[in-house]
């Protein structure tokens, strides 16, 4: 793997962002709106419910972590879509650029966009709505790590789907976080869900993160095995996503889809 090739992919994203307010604004606008919305909701809930339970770390903190995951995932898919929209596949894939270098470039780009979103969310949540990360302690770091890895895994899977089914498959990608959120238990314990949904939740790393988040707020402890399970699952998901992308790419090269991507299918 050659770093200069991965750096070229990151540089391309930097150039695109630098010259385009339409690309810069979404990095923080939607997450800022979410923070404001959920900030006021939690304030209202704190004012109408019995004293003793603070909704700010429970809900606003959960929304912040969930939005961070979405930003990481969309950081990868959006970087990939730039090559779809500008019909750049043939230019890139007919060069020495290896798939691992290309995907690494997408991941590095998403770290930058994810961190911008996270910084804006933290600023709003702490300064305006009084969210304190002291409530979670040092465990917020592994929580962010797990959500980051899962965001990467899902982002890479999503790009593979668009590579396989063509530009119109972009429509499938945007709602994926909304589809997962009921199973992830962002706002409620997993035990609230029917048994079949709980089974799906157990396969999703974010479900362990949000269960752990609630456990810390409720009694100050977290299950080390749950944290380890979420980390292990997230790493497994990244490996599986890489394997899945690689298979889809090989299929695209074998069938000629890369060379004729705008046709979407070869039939």
């Amino acid at each position, binding site marked *: 793997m050659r770093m200069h090739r991965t750096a070229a992919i990151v540089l*391309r994203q930097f150039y*695109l962002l630098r010259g385009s307010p339409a690309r810069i604004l979404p990095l923080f606008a939607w997450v800022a709106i979410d923070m404001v919305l959920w900030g006021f909701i939690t304030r209202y809930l704190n004012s109408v419910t019995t004293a003793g339970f603070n909704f700010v770390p429970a809900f606003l903190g959960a929304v912040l972590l969930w939005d961070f995951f979405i930003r990481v995932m969309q950081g990868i898919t959006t970087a990939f879509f730039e090559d779809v929209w500008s019909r750049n596949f043939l*230019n890139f894939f007919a060069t020495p650029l290896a798939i691992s270098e290309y995907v690494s470039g997408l991941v590095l780009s998403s770290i930058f966009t994810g961190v911008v979103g996270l910084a804006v969310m933290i600023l709003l949540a702490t300064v305006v709505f009084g969210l304190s990360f002291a409530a979670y302690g040092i465990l917020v770091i592994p929580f962010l790590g797990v959500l980051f890895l899962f965001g990467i895994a899902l982002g890479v899977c999503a790009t593979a789907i668009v590579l396989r089914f063509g530009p119109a498959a972009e429509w499938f990608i945007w709602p994926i976080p909304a589809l997962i959120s009921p199973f992830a238990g962002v706002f409620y314990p997993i035990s609230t869900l029917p048994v079949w949904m709980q089974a799906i939740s157990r396969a999703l790393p974010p479900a362990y993160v949000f269960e752990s988040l609630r456990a810390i707020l409720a009694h100050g402890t977290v299950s080390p095995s749950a944290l380890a399970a979420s980390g292990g699952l997230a790493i497994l998901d990244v490996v599986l996503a890489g394997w899945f992308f690689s298979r889809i790419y*090989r299929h695209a090269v074998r069938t000629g889809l890369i060379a004729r991507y705008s046709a979407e299918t070869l039939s």
Partner: protein
Amino acid sequence: MEAGIFVDTTTVLSVTGLHKRYGDVQAVDGVWFDVKRREIVGLLGPNGAGKTTTISMILGVLEPTSGSVRIEGIDLASRRSQALERTNFAAVYTPLPGNLTVMQNLRIFGMIYGVPKLAERIETLLQQFDLEPFRDTKCGVLSSGEQTRVSLAKAMLNSPNLLLLDEPTASLDPSAARDIRARIRGFADQGSCGVLWTSHNMYEVEEVCDRVLFLSHGKILLEGDPKTLPGEHGKENLEDLFILVAREPLALERQ
């Protein structure tokens, strides 16, 4: 060859038994050919003959059903990145991203190819292809001729040993096309590069190519010097021979 000077004419591209089948359609049906250094080889044929499919396989974006491609002896299938480091291409159907400037595109592709002293190399190419006034212009607003020059500048970034050009002058006016042909001819003559060139302009092919391969229905039907080949088949010029290949390939297959 100048007396006393060694001219390297070793093989830079070796295509062996290349086949590509899509379902029931045999797009490329057993193609063998070589390209040597300093040689410009024209890959000719009617639409749908298999030219772009062949070029896609040489570029590694399409996997052959069978057969192999070796670039400077390096097997493309097993050592793709190393093989393509020595290669570059320009095609009329692959303009560079229109939302980046000429400089930005050249810098990104220069990094991908690992070009040493990239800034210097880009300046040289901007001069060579008369692109200096457009260095900070987005590629999407350039005329098609200017975009072609940017694509060719990109194709020269890594001083490739194998250059693939798929109808490189298709969108250029005759004056610009002549200029580009002269540059590429000069590049092939001076360096250690072999060029595989497709074109439907037979005048251009006759002017620039050392050797031509006529492809029809995925097979090479004819091969030879573009200046003498028409006469060998009873035709006045290359265009007449092209039309014969397009309309009566079976007659040539029997020869």
